[in-house]
């Protein structure tokens, strides 16, 4: 069938005029250069590739803990926007070895934007490598490089319920110091119970902030410190965070969303406790503080052959079945990319050419096609044999 749109001659001629129309439009167009796109600019305020800060104050919270306030080095620089509960990955060069560790932002977004700072609270107990170095070396005036805000441990109004149960252990309380005031101010329907496990009372962080929040929002916020090794004069809750304890403060756990942040041991304990409540997975969000720990299995000392993208050289480095592949790479000074250190962000994604690794189920964030084509996340993989791997370069120049 022959199709006619206007009439056959016009239809054909119109086709041949195509290029003339195009040429005319091109000729008439402006030859101005474009500015950076507005959306690309927005993006650089949310996810700048790096942030440089100067430390403006240091507050000792406890004998082992300090809060550092930091503001952008650039005169017109602004802190990247973030969701309360997210972390930034802090970089440091320690004796020629570049490492990075995630730290939750401990200040609420509104305050951070208004006065252009982040608070980071660092405790030496939780991390054997970076935190002690930070405590010794960071002072007012120090310059610090970090990533953009990262992570999925944040409230989401389209998903979470109006009652929030926050379970914190040790320095795992830091994201709540951002999240709780933020929700109290901006989500009027949300009410919150914070159950905060510490070994001794003098380890309670931000001890002046919590009572202030309680007195400002008495109907919506309860603060319950729980001491596992109390002194005689402690009149509060004791023991570990448990279902019994939760039951004393939350009448219907089935109607609550749980946010849990603390060391691995606390997560392990709470996993079995919470199992008794039959919560739906959608009710529970977890943030694991500190690298996962594992007992040495297999032979302790192993070898990894590492090729870095962009180089033919293969390096042989020592590894240990009790440490992740990422740690082995860092020890060898190879500066591998890493952000979350818990398997979920995929930033350390590398090629597993040969050998076997163990990946715990709860920190296995690998993509299905990556399993098929032989990729893995070194931060959540423990070597079980000698390995051959290929790692990407770290995108950041130091």
């Amino acid at each position, binding site marked *: 069938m022959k*199709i006619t749109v206007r009439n056959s001659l016009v239809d054909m001629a119109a086709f041949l*005029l195509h290029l003339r129309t195009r040429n005319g439009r091109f000729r008439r167009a402006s030859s101005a250069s*474009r500015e950076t796109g*507005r959306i690309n600019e927005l993006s650089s305020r949310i996810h700048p590739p790096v942030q440089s800060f100067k430390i403006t104050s240091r507050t000792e919270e406890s004998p082992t803990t300090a809060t550092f306030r930091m503001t952008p080095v650039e005169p017109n620089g602004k802190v990247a926007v973030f969701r309360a509960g997210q972390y930034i990955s802090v970089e440091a060069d320690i004796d020629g070895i570049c490492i990075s560790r995630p730290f939750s932002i401990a200040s609420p977004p509104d305050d951070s934007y208004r006065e252009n700072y982040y608070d980071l609270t660092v405790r030496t107990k939780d991390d054997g490598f970076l935190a002690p170095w930070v405590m010794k070396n960071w002072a007012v005036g120090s310059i610090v490089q970090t990533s953009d805000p990262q992570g999925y441990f944040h409230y989401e109004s389209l998903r979470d319920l109006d009652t929030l149960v926050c379970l914190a252990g040790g320095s795992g309380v830091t994201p709540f110091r951002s999240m709780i005031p933020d929700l109290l101010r901006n989500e009027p329907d949300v009410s919150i119970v914070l159950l905060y496990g510490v070994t001794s009372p003098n380890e309670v962080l931000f001890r002046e902030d919590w009572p202030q929040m309680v007195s400002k929002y008495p109907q919506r916020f309860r603060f319950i410190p729980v001491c596992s090794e109390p002194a005689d004069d402690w009149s509060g809750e004791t023991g570990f965070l448990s279902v019994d304890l939760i039951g004393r403060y939350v009448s219907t756990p089935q109607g609550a969303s749980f946010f849990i942040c603390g060391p691995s041991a606390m997560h392990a304990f709470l996993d079995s406790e919470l199992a008794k409540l039959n919560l*739906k997975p*959608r009710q529970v969000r977890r943030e694991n503080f500190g690298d996962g720990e594992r007992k040495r299995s297999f032979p302790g000392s192993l070898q990894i052959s590492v090729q870095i993208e*962009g180089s033919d050289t293969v390096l042989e480095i020592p590894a240990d079945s009790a440490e992740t592949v990422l740690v082995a790479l860092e020890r060898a000074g190879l500066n591998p*990319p890493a952000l979350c250190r818990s398997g979920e962000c995929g930033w350390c994604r590398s090629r597993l050419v040969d050998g076997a690794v163990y990946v715990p189920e709860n920190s296995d964030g690998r993509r299905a096609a990556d399993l098929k084509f032989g990729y893995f996340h070194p931060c959540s993989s423990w070597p079980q044999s000698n390995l051959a791997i290929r790692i990407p*370069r770290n*995108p950041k120049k130091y």
Partner: protein
Amino acid sequence: MTASYDIIVIGAGLGGLGAAFEASRAGRRVLLLEQHNLPGGFATSFVRGRFEFEPSLHELPDVNSIEEAAGTIRYLVDDAGLDIDFVSIPEAYRVILTENGTNVRMPFGLSQCADLIEKEVPGSRESVTAYLDLCAEVQAAFRALSGGEGPPDYRKIFKEHGNFLRTGSYTAEEVADALNLPAKARDLLYPYWCYLGVPMNRVSFTIWASLLNAYLSAGAVIPKLRSHEISAAFVRGIEDHGGEIRLNTRVEHVLVEDGRIQGVETSLGERITCEALISNASPTLMFNFLIHPSSAIPAAAKKMVNARRHGFSLVVVYLGLDADRHALGLEDYSYFIAPHMDTEKLYQGIYSLESDEIMQASVCLNAANPTCSPNGTTILALTAGYRSEAWEDVRAEDYFRVKTRAADRLIRQFEQATGTDIRSHIEEIEIATPQTFARYTGAYDGIVYGYEPEPWYSVVPRALSMKKETFVRGLYFCGGFSYRCHGYGSSILSGKDAGETAVRDLESGVTT
């Protein structure tokens, strides 16, 4: 490793992957540079909790069945030999128009579609059949022409593909009018407009017809392990053929001297030379930001970029739901939901974040791929076009609130149109906006849909003037902003074309 290659490819999106694959398969020394830590660009995946989400692909058309694949699928599996498992999409789509109560499930197959439309719109069969046949003819002509080399033989085209030429300068709306396609039939056939992103009164009929026929006539598939499977398979293929890939490596400068490509400088401080450069970064980025020194950017190239209208971006709400899809009442794979099918109005609506004149194209992944998430869970992704302009004035400090509101709107629209309860089953949620796409792919203003294919600048005029539009010797473009327009198939095949052309030019010495 040397700091000199035959061919450097900027960007490992589908276009760049296809280009690097072809060039390394042809035995050339190829270096593929990607700024992100993953290959694929939009063709990737991400994990949240128990779910691995598909970020972009709804469906790859151009198949009869997986066994007798054609077009893109045939290229990927048979020709390139990539290790990708595909699963089929069960039915074309459900279209729900809330203002006039349309709620129809469209099947695959041209005669099945004509039957169904006849049932819904009695008396429409003749014009609908003529319309669908014409679309099939146009796609066949388009295919026959796009394979060839050298200038087209107009006499031959005229003889064999008269209707292709006669309709080639018109919009989809003009051709539908000429065939008296009933309004209600248009309601049912137009939903795919949102894959092109240009309203029917402006979109090139050639492009529209090819797309409609590609989907309706032969059905569609998706890769089993999300589109990251396509990208990872390409990487394997490139490496098997001796090509080299460096992730986390951004090309900062494309070095040009005397109108000829010299090489690139990367974010890691390398300077690498090459004979030819294939860019998966758009001409907009190349001719405004990448070429160095900027005095080497021809004014004509900037005019070309400015004469084109950039396409739209998208907002996607990715949902991991904690119930089985049947329990949720999600019986379809693809849902097109809008107040009406007035595409011009819908297009105007997406300039604003507050408009209710929005159309969503939403996909329940489990309906095609039952094992994509754990038993008793469902993956649902709600997608709507948005002009990037709608997001320009959003302050960074308000960004999270604004995107939550946009997501809320789409979830509400979906629930109301389908009568389902999604909200109380959300276990994981992620919301992508133009900002997200800008972040991960560097796309200018987060634009996903390349340059708008109006008749004067549809595939045919683009193909005819391709050589004129690179402006720099040794420079080639591929991907969603190149001559085949956006989309998975177009991007992959444009990469294949660019790889082959660059290799051919190197062999014949044209680039020097």
